[in-house]
């Protein structure tokens, strides 16, 4: 199946002059928007609901249902935020679509804006994506010139403005309420919910936050119809009424110890093994994979035995991971020490914890310190117990933090201790120091 798969979101990548609006329109671009504008906004939302599109940002929430959360009959301004703060380690799918096919995303924004009756869209782009910023700005200018944006878009009576906003390099700004706070010019401390952003978000107005890839999918769903979208991916499990299925294609970012790292678009449901062997040229240097991160580092690890796990919205969860996340697959070969991997992970989260909630602020830094000591050859078995306690107490599953960052910090620790405990014990018992280059502890 995957061999024959024709890329959809990535179909214009690498084509000449692919960022220009003329090329895009010649390729059938803005048909989806035209179709959407011919419908009522509610019909557009219903189309997206019918397609069963789930958010590509990490949580996999139903896009259409999210739009439905907006207060009914509300007449004030509604805002649409586009989450382009792609900071999950290993993830670069948004970057590629924005750089190579900005109009596909922007078309999705206008469609989503029309469906949600949004008056203004804020495109929150991570600061490091300079080329994306320039590409997007140029594309937005082109759209204004052709009346795909601005007042009375294509004579439909609907008006939308887009503001392109660059972040300031913080992981937490990818959390939707952190993003909103940052957009408002404040410290990106995620908000307590309720109220959810759909009720009270940016500038205290109802706000929808959607991921870049999600909106690119919206463009294609409107263009080709929800039935087409449902032909791709993994259908609902008829025996499990709570299963929402994993429809559509997904951009898998493959990095780490593979021969051919990169971005591939495949239907949801491909297994990690297929992905590595068929699309990434296998593990490098003829080694074997020891662990695979299924979807960005916060999702935890798959062990070598679990490589046949399908990478859809449910698969990684069944293997003990947090979820599919951003589908950023990081392959770790068998010459790598999991102690080093986990240390690097914890260091990242300690650095990126916003510092609002006590458990996350202190727990992430503590876990990094403990692993630092273990790497120095001074670990004890009690340290593993401490790490275990930290991983069980900082996340939202016991309810101890406002946002999901702590969950993401806890899961790799949880998985590593569950699946690679003998390696940790052996490392501590041996008393040897890590051979990896010393990475400076941020704190």
């Amino acid at each position: 199946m995957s061999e024959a798969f024709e890329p959809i979101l990535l179909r214009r990548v690498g084509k000449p002059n692919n960022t220009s609006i003329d090329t895009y329109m010649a390729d059938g671009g803005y048909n989806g928007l035209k179709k959407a504008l011919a419908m009522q906004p509610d019909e557009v939302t219903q189309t997206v609901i019918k397609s069963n599109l789930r958010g590509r940002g990490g949580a996999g929430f139903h896009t259409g249902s999210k739009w439905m959360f907006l207060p009914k009959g509300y007449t004030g301004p509604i805002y649409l935020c586009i989450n382009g703060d792609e900071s999950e380690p290993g993830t670069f799918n948004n970057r590629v679509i924005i750089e190579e096919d900005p109009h596909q995303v922007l078309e999705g924004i206008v469609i989503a804006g029309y469906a949600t009756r949004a008056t203004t869209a804020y495109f929150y782009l991570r600061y490091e994506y300079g080329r994306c910023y320039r590409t997007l700005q140029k594309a937005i200018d082109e759209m204004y010139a052709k009346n795909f944006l601005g007042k009375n878009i294509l004579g439909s009576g609907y008006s939308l403005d887009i503001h392109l906003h660059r972040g300031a390099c913080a992981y937490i700004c990818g959390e939707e309420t952190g993003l909103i706070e940052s957009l408002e010019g404040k410290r990106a401390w995620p908000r307590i919910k309720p109220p959810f952003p759909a009720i009270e978000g940016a500038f205290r107005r109802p706000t929808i936050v959607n991921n870049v890839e999600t909106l690119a999918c919206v463009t294609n769903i409107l263009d080709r119809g929800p039935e087409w979208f449902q032909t791709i991916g993994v259908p609902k499990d008829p025996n499990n009424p709570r299963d929402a299925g994993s429809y559509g294609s997904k951009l898998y970012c493959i990095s780490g110890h593979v021969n051919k790292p990169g971005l591939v678009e495949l239907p949801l449901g491909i297994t990690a093994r297929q992905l590595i062997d068929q699309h990434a040229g296998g593990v490098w240097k003829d080694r074997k994979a020891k662990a695979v991160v299924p979807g960005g580092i916060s999702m935890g690890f798959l062990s070598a035995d679990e490589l046949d796990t399908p990478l859809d919205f449910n698969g990684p969860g069944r293997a003990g991971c947090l979820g599919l996340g951003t589908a950023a697959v990081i392959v770790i070969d068998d010459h790598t020490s999991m102690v080093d991997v986990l240390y690097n992970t914890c260091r990242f989260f300690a650095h990126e914890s916003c510092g609002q909630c006590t458990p996350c602020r202190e727990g992430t830094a503590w876990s990094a310190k403990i692993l630092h000591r273990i790497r120095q050859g001074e670990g004890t078995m009690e340290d593993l117990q401490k790490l275990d306690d930290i991983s069980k107490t900082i996340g939202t599953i016991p309810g101890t933090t406002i946002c999901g960052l702590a969950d993401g910090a806890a899961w790799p620790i949880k998985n590593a201790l569950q699946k690679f405990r003998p390696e940790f014990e052996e490392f501590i018992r041996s008393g040897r120091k890590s051979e990896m280059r010393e990475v400076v502890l941020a704190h």
Partner: protein
Amino acid sequence: MGSVRINDVEVDVDPKSNIIQAAQQAGVEIPYYCWHHDLSVVASCRMCLVEVGEKKPDGTVSMFPKLVPACQTPAKPGTVVITDSDKVKKSREQTLEYLLLNHPLDCSICDQAGECYLQDYTYKFGRAHSRLNEPKVQRLDKYHIGDQIALFTDRCVMCTRCVRFTREISGTSELHVVNRGSVEEIDVFPGHECNNKLAGNVVDLCPVGALCSKDFLYKKRVWWLKSANSVCTGCSTGCSIEVDQNEDKIFRLRPRENPQAQGSFMCDEGRFGWKYVNSEDRLLAPRKGKLGTATPSPATEEKPKSDLDFSDPWPNILNDVNQAIAEAARHDAHKFVAIFSPFMTCEEAYLLASHLKSINSHIRLVLGPVPVVGADDCYPKGPKGESPAPDKVKFTIRAEKCPNRLGVSAILKHFQGEVIEWSTVQSELAAKHLQSALFVGGYPQPVLSNADVQNLSELRLLIVQDILRSKLTDNANFVLASASFAEREGTVVNHAGLAQRCHAAVRPPAEARADGRILMELAGRRGLFHADSLLQEIGAVIPAFAALKEATMGELGVKALS
């Protein structure tokens, strides 16, 4: 009102309150750091996590799988809260361990020790030992954070109450959070220290010893302090306060929560404005005869008092004062004025007024100078320092810098039908129409102009009841050394007519006496000064104070005048 179950206790609570408040009502303690009823909810300390469920119509209870912050969760009718399960205990234990990871545990030299939430909760809910094997994060202390405030950065638990206070109550936004994660700190922008007029409140708000008052720093361990409920006399807002003292020495004033008066806070003017109580210039004993005159009268020649002379100087002097008043009144009562300070309590004003009117009804009772400085200062300030709209005001420092103008005026009005303003007397003094005066002071700062003092000094009889030595007391025929706000019992009425009770926190210095006691003796009343019985008498005699007759005053006061 709706019924909420906390553990096994059913309570009726206001649905607007949160679970912490509901639990307080039920007598169950839920620990918290970041929540404060006057500040916005951030739910970030995660100390107040509890198990919450819902009672279904069929009587079954379904608990939520996650722990929930009690501060953020409204106590809706039918809510079921469990605060003593293992899950909750474990979560508290773990949160406290996290909070203590980088805390220096320098309780032995920390001002907050004894009233520290971190200490208390650790004893109640925490673990005995930290499992941290790594070095703690070192942070520099910041003495520059404000003129009155020092920040001991490493003790901070990042509850951000102080930050929210400067944003939401004072509106001055000096404090903020810098850095991220476990190295974040509270700080100010360079050159923008936290020196607003409400800054001292952040010290009270700080649940740990991070923000300390420089004024109180290292002065006294808090467990030696005894508190008395009182009322700030700095302005007519009449903030409810607690006076913390040890061995008759005041160490600090703290706001006492009173929604009827000022809320939860007080201004720095009031907070640090008590220093005159310990002034070198305090009058320590009553005196007869002017100071510095060439020939002191024989009765008052100032013999150095022997160490063994324990005789009470008051009875003779008060006797002489009474005679002098009677004589002056006989001579020409119209030319005798009694000047009542707006710093007097209602009881004192009543005692003096009734006494003087019983001597001679022509003696005029005058409301003394009312100090007014600038205009009312309202908070929260806007971004450019502008005052808030009237409906947004959360705290007001009033321009009228005295506690009891309303109360004293009401009493004067009862006894002579009108309130004679100080300005009337001022012009009469200047025109030399007066012969005798009784001046009650008690002002922390001098309020009389030099001309006024000169005119008063030239009277045939000048009796001054005051706390601080001044040119006026030097030139008085009789000086009655009286007590400051912290040394006396009584009732004051604030700008809104709220009558509140002050309690004596310390004793007056040396031979000085509380005004009430002086006046009881002067009026020849039997027994000791007792504010409650006097207040009942006032309530019975003066219709304007009828509300005080029956009411038990309590610590929050009663609305007396409209």
